[in-house]
């Protein structure tokens, strides 16, 4: 992905880049007074010191259950990516069909946790639920990004093929080989995302790391929570040492074998019942139109509209703040700015930020600032900022490695302001725009802080077993996501002109 992005970004124009940034910042400033921010005076230090102690002195009594949770986390992620990537590739080849584009936008606009909750209605707490919850949205994501990578490829090799060659041949002989490094690098990045998703699915009951993490955090067993966070961090940090292409078939077989066993699964009619009854409001099923109108009006007024508004406002502020976090943190981890040794603490910081689930960060900020949109925004900005800053620092290091230094190269702040940041900025912005829709989805799941985002209402609807409401809200969330996705694509195009 990086390769493709870099290629296209060389032609970016500074002016449109600046105006896009300005637009985003103005929108965020406009959102500020309306978003739900308020600081309450709190008294968090005894709780925070307990969390701190837990992180410093992690402890876990049953190594076997920890190991099992790690294995399950990896198994779900591996299998989901192994299925989603080829499916995404196939869909990417027909991405010019509008129906495919819409389908992909629809499936990826629903958060993994919500997919998990939906599939749980159909398949219970089972391996299938976990797999589908990751692979369905990931397929949509793969299709979109792969299609964009293909779009950025040069057309010349394809012209050497006979006129009558089928489209498939064009992909197999030219586009796929041309873009293979980008496809693989994106797949690797997605695997890391899949590990995170897999861990987080534990929050709703799948036997992954998140399962124990949620329990430990809930009960205030911070040394156990610390052990789980460290385990997850090490897992993410060590991916490149154990994820070898040659070992993949072995891993996949092992993953199938290691999937958690499904206990007492027996659902004959739940799929049909869910589709035909559960997700439709009762007045609709009874054909009672006035009552349906009333249901709709009430939902709009009490949940849909306030939820939409709050989700959008928080997202806008979070995106801009994410940009600030990237600009502040990436130099700490890059070789050319922090130096070959001093970059390690920076790299560790970014690793910690991107492997700590947002929920955990949000909880800590909740203790610090009290309940409002502020902890949500900070958690989203730090997590996503850490993630993108890591990619940006890597790109900087890759360039640094391939170039001989000149004695008159600027260093320090000058280098940051006049060399590195301008070089990184287009790619940085492109990544931020990719992440926009992710931030939107994630802001929706942080309703637990008493901030009435769409996700807050979706979660309530599932908790109250009101799937008709949940479905309406999920569809609204998906539509919002599609709008944001379209806007972000337009904006990205405006500063990154694809090669002719």
């Amino acid at each position, binding site marked *: 992905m990086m390769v493709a992005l870099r290629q296209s970004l060389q032609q970016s124009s500074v002016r449109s880049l600046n105006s896009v940034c300005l637009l985003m910042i103005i929108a965020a400033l406009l959102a500020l007074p309306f978003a739900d921010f*308020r600081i*309450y*005076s*709190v*008294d*968090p230090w*005894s*709780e*925070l010191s307990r969390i701190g102690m837990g992180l410093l002195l992690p402890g876990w009594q*049953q190594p076997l*259950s920890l190991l099992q949770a790690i294995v399950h986390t990896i198994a779900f992620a591996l299998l989901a990516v192994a299925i989603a990537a080829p499916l995404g590739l196939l869909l990417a080849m027909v991405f010019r069909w509008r129906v495919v584009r819409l389908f992909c936008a629809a499936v990826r606009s629903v958060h993994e946790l919500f997919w998990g*909750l939906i599939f*749980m*209605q159909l*398949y*219970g*707490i*089972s*391996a*299938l639920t976990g797999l589908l919850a990751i692979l369905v949205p990931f397929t949509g994501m793969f299709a979109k990004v792969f299609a964009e990578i293909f779009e950025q490829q040069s057309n010349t090799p394809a012209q050497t093929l006979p006129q009558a060659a089928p489209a498939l041949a064009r992909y197999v002989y030219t586009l796929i080989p041309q873009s293979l490094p980008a496809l693989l690098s994106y797949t690797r990045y997605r695997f890391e995302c899949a590990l995170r998703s897999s861990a987080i699915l*534990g929050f*709703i*009951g799948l*036997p992954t790391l998140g*399962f*124990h993490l949620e*329990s*430990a*955090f*809930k*009960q*205030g067993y911070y040394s*156990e929570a610390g052990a789980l966070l460290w385990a997850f961090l090490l897992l993410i940090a060590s991916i490149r040492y154990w994820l070898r292409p040659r070992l993949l078939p072995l891993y996949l*077989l092992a993953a*199938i*074998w290691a*999937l958690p*066993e*499904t*206990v*007492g*699964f*027996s*659902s*004959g009619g*739940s799929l049909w019942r869910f589709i035909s009854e559960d997700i439709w409001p009762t007045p609709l099923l009874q054909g009672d139109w006035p009552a349906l109108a009333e249901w709709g009006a009430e939902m709009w007024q009490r949940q849909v509209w306030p939820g939409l508004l709050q989700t959008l406002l928080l997202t806008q502020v979070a995106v801009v703040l994410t940009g600030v976090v990237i600009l502040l943190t990436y130099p700490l981890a890059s070789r050319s700015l922090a130096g070959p040794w001093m970059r390690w603490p920076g790299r560790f910081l970014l690793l910690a930020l991107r492997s700590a689930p947002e929920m955990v960060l949000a909880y800590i900020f*909740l*203790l610090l600032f*009290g*309940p*409002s949109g502020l902890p949500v925004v900070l958690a989203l900005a730090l997590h996503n900022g850490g993630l993108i800053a890591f990619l940006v620092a890597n790109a900087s290091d890759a360039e640094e490695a391939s170039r001989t230094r000149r004695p008159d190269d600027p260093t320090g702040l000058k280098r940051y302001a006049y060399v590195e940041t301008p070089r990184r900025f287009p790619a940085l912005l492109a990544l931020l725009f990719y992440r926009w829709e992710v931030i939107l989805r994630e802001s929706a799941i942080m309703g*637990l*802080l*008493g901030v009435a985002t769409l996700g807050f209402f979706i*979660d*309530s609807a*599932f*908790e*109250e*077993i009101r799937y008709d409401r949940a479905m309406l809200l999920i569809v609204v969330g998906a539509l919002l996501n599609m709008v944001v996705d379209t806007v972000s694509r337009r904006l990205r195009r405006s500063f990154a002109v694809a090669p002719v």
Partner: protein
Amino acid sequence: MNFLRYIRHTCLLALLLCGAAVQAETFVFTAIPDQDETQLQERFGKVADYLSKELGVEVRYIPVKSYAAAITAFRNNQVQLAWFGGLSGVQARRLVPGSVALAQGYEDQFFKSFFIAHKSAGLQPGETLPEALKGKTFTFGSKGSTSGRLMPEFYLREQFGMAPEKLFSRVGFSGDHSRTIAQVQAGAYQVGAVNYAVWESELAAGKIDTDKVQVIWTTPTYPDYQWSIRGDVDKRFGAGFQDKVRAALLDMKDPELLASFPRQSFVPASNDDYDPIEETAKAIDLLD
């Protein structure tokens, strides 16, 4: 052996992927205790062993994360028996016609909730909820909890005649009683509603600093946690199975097993015992 196990897993996955149901005559139950959700598998595995011995069938336990997941598993017949909260039991039995509340904890006959407040909120304990509650920040426990949501919300509405969102400047859902205590103690929320049993056990464990947080009001008592069983178990596991399960639950005397819930013993219960809960849930629009 390993190879056979691998084959079994592969077949299982293949079956799952085909969407086929894997039916086994295993009696499955789930339980979410109101405190300490760690090591569920280990602790409730022992309860499963006990039930298996008493009932003469294989009994398995599945851990779940939320009342909603427990209700779904009960409805889809993934589990046949569940330890529900008052509200989740009512919700589940409405969705599974013929299902029955078998037994409740001794303590659940007269359960209650505490309203707790951070000292800085300046609220004093009293016979009723203080008027000064207006405009404070407030957190419930989990959204589907009887003691952390349903009953507190009912009494708030009864006394103040308005929805919590109107009464308080902010309403959160901590997700769990222990977290409600931690958050009110940290001042993140000024006031919270919590299960009395969790409060008392955390107090005994020295986790609560009473200089920072105190109980300001106690609700009247209400019925809470209970065992509910599906109505079709007799058909599947043999006549009289439901009664055998009830007897096994009432006979559970081992303190180690009871500590998992944690309850001192189980006593008989019926669906009617939970009518007040159902009425309350309807009154605050948690049930249609």
